[in-house]
C-alpha cells in the first residue's frame, strides 16, 4: 500500500519478493529506505504503469459521477473496483470506465467484500452521509487511503471516529471540501487576504446557497432498477423510523436520504458545509457561538428544515465578526451561491462559480490604499472591472447613500472541473508529493460548528461553543 504517513514501514520484504504495491509504498515513504536505489527510482519515473494508484469506489450515485468525471483526466490512476447496493449504478460505472479506458472493473454489492478481495491504494466514498463514517473507517482499516465526500458524517461522533481511524491507521483521509484545493480560493486567501490584506478589517461575512424549488424536488426512479426491501433494510435505510417501512418507503429514503434526520444533516449540511468551511478557513478561526432559525416552510413533510438561516459569532485577531449564512431550497434568486467577506476597505465575494465572484473596493478608501490597488492591477494580481456608478434618480437619498464601490475581478480562473484539483492533491499526497489540503482532522475542526446549526434552530437558543461542542 502507498503509505506516506506510515511510521513503521515493513523492512523484511526482499527486493525479489517486492510487489508493485509494496514498491510504491517503499518508494514514497522516503527517507533512509534501502529501496531508494537507482533501479527503483528509475522504475518510478513519471508515466510508468507501476506508478498507477489503484482506485476503488464506494457508492456509485450522482456524487460519485461528479468525482469520477473530475478524475478521468488525471494520469496515473488505475480503476479497479466499485461497490454499491444498486446493480444499475454499478453497471453505469462499469460501462463508463470500460468505454473510456477499455478496462473492466470488478463490481461488488458489498463494500466489505470489495475491501477484502481487492488490492486497493485508495477509495472514494460517496455514499449517503450516514454511511460516510462506517465506510471510511472500514476502508482505512483495510489499509486504503480515503477520499470521503463531505459532510464527514451525519453525526459528530461519526466524524470523530473518522479522525480517530485516520490517526490510528496512519492512512490518508481527505474530506471533499474541494474549495480548499481550488486555485481561485487559494489565490484569494494567500494573496488578496493574507499578503495584500485587501479587505481591511473583516467585520461581516455573508454566505448563501439559494436553490430553486424545481431543483429541490423528490428524486424518483424506475422501481425495477432499485434495490429490494431486504437489501435496503440491511443497508440501514430504515434508521430512525418509528414503524416498519414498506418497500416503497424504503426506496424513497434510499433516493432521498437527504430529507431524513437519521440519514443526513439536511440542507445546512449538504449545501452549507462547503461554504461555512470557507468562513472558518479564511478567518483562521472557529466561531464562538451560533444562533439559527429554520422551518419546514414549503416541504412540510420533510424531517429537515427546507430553509435555514444562521449567524456565527467569531473572535478574530482583528476583532469580533459575524457570519450570516442562509440555505434556501425554495428560491434561486439572490445571486446563487457564494461566500462574501465584507471588510472596511473591500468586499471579496468568492464562489466556486466564476460568474458569482466579485471584488469591490470601497469608495472611501485612502489614496494610499487606492494606489496599492492600481499597482496590483498593473502587476496582474487583480483585473479592473467597472467603476462604481451612482444610480442617481429622484428616489436617491443623497445624505444616506454611500458612493458605489469600484468592481474588480480575480486575474484568472480554473480550467478544470471544480473537484479535480482536490482529487489531484489527494493523489499527490498518496505519492508523498504534497500534504492534504483538507485532511479529516482539519475538516472536522471546520465542520464541528455546523453540526450545531440544526439544534440551535430547533431550540431557538444561542449555542455558545465549548470544547465539548467542538473537540475533534
Amino acid at each position, binding site marked *: 500500500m502507498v503509505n506516506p504517513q506510515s511510521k513503521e514501514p515493513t523492512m523484511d520484504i526482499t527486493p525479489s519478493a517486492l510487489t508493485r504495491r509494496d514498491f510504491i509504498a517503499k518508494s514514497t515513504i522516503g527517507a533512509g529506505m534501502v529501496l531508494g536505489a537507482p533501479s527503483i527510482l528509475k522504475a518510478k519515473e513519471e508515466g510508468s504503469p507501476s506508478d498507477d494508484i489503484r482506485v476503488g469506489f464506494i457508492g456509485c450515485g450522482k456524487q460519485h459521477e461528479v468525482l469520477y468525471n473530475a478524475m478521468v483526466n488525471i494520469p496515473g490512476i488505475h480503476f479497479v473496483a466499485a461497490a454499491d447496493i444498486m446493480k444499475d449504478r454499478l453497471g453505469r460505472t462499469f460501462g463508463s470506465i470500460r468505454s473510456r479506458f477499455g478496462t473492466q472493473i470488478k463490481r461488488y454489492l458489498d463494500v466489505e467484500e470489495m475491501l477484502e478481495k481487492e488490492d486497493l491504494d485508495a477509495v472514494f466514498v460517496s455514499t449517503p452521509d450516514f454511511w460516510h463514517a462506517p465506510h471510511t473507517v472500514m476502508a482505512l482499516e483495510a489499509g486504503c487511503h480515503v477520499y470521503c465526500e463531505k459532510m464527514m458524517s451525519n453525526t459528530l461522533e461519526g466524524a470523530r471516529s473518522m479522525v480517530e481511524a485516520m490517526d490510528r491507521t496512519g492512512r490518508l483521509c481527505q474530506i471533499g471540501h474541494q474549495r480548499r484545493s481550488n486555485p*481561485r480560493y487559494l*489565490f484569494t486567501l494567500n494573496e488578496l487576504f493574507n499578503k495584500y490584506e485587501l479587505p481591511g478589517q473583516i467585520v461581516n461575512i455573508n454566505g448563501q446557497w439559494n436553490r430553486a424549488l424545481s431543483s429541490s424536488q423528490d428524486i424518483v426512479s424506475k422501481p425495477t432498477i432499485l434495490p429490494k426491501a431486504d437489501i435496503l433494510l440491511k443497508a440501514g435505510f430504515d434508521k430512525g423510523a418509528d414503524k416498519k417501512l414498506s418497500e416503497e418507503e424504503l426506496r424513497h429514503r434510499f433516493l432521498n436520504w437527504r430529507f431524513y434526520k437519521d440519514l443526513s444533516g439536511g440542507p445546512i449540511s449538504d449545501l452549507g458545509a462547503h461554504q461555512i468551511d470557507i468562513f472558518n478557513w479564511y478567518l483562521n478561526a472557529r466561531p464562538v457561538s451560533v444562533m439559527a432559525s429554520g422551518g419546514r416552510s414549503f416541504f412540510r413533510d420533510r424531517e429537515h428544515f427546507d430553509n435555514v438561516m444562521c449567524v456565527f459569532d467569531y473572535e478574530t485577531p482583528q476583532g469580533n465578526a459575524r457570519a450570516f449564512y442562509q440555505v434556501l431550497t425554495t428560491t434561486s434568486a439572490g445571486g446563487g451561491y457564494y461566500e462574501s467577506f465584507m471588510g472596511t476597505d473591500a468586499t471579496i465575494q468568492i464562489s466556486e462559480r466564476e460568474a458569482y465572484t466579485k471584488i469591490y473596493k470601497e469608495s472611501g478608501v485612502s489614496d494610499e490604499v487606492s494606489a496599492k490597488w492600481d499597482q496590483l492591477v498593473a*502587476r*496582474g494580481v487583480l483585473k479592473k472591472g467597472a467603476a462604481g456608478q451612482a444610480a442617481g434618480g429622484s428616489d436617491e437619498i443623497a445624505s444616506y447613500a454611500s458612493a458605489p464601490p469600484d468592481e474588480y475581478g480575480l*486575474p*484568472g*480562473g*480554473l*480550467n478544470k472541473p471544480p473537484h479535480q*484539483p482536490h482529487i489531484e492533491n489527494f493523489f499527490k499526497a498518496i505519492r508523498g508529493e504534497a500534504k492534504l489540503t483538507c485532511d479529516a482532522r482539519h475538516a472536522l475542526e471546520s465542520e464541528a460548528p455546523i453540526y450545531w446549526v440544526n439544534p440551535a434552530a430547533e431550540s431557538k437558543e444561542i449555542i455558545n461553543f465549548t470544547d465539548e461542542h467542538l473537540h475533534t
Partner: protein
Amino acid sequence: MSLKESDGNSLEYTLGMLLLRLWLAMRSIQAGIEKYAGTSAGAKPVNIDGAPNDYGLTEATSSKVYSLDNYQGVPAALYDKFKDEPFIPEWGLNLYNIILGPALIILGITLLLGLATRFTLFAMGLLYSSLTFGLILLKQDAGIAWLGTHIIMIVMALALAKYNRFAILKKW
C-alpha cells in the same frame, strides 16, 4: 458591343466570365469547408509580474479549427427548425445534411477547374435553389434575397459560357 455581336473572343467577356467563375467557386468551396469548422477551447496561465502564476490560475482561450468531426451540413439552429417543417421529411433532411458540405466543395472545385462548366453552374443553381426553398419555409427573406444574387450571378455566368477560357473540360 453586345453579346450577340461578339465573336466569342472578346477580352472583356472572357475576363468577366473568369471573375464569375472565381467568385462562385470561392464562395462555394469556402462555404463547404466552413461546415467543418469548430472552436477549440483552451486555457493559458495568467501572468503576474510578467511570469506565469504559481497557483494554476488560467484564462480561457479559443481558436477556430477544422475537422471532419465538426461537420454539420445544415447549421444546428436551422436543422431543428426544418425538423418541424411538414414539407421536409426527416430522412430527406438527414440526407441533405450529409451531402450539402461535400456538394458545395465539389461543385466549387469543378467550377474553378472548368470541368463541364455549364452543367456545374446549373447544378450549383439547383443547390442554391434548394437552399432558397428551405429559407422560404422559415420566412428568412434576407437569406432568400442573398441566395437570389447567387442565382443571378450563375445565370450571368451561363450567359457568358461561350467566353469560358482556362477550362479543363469545355464540353457540357
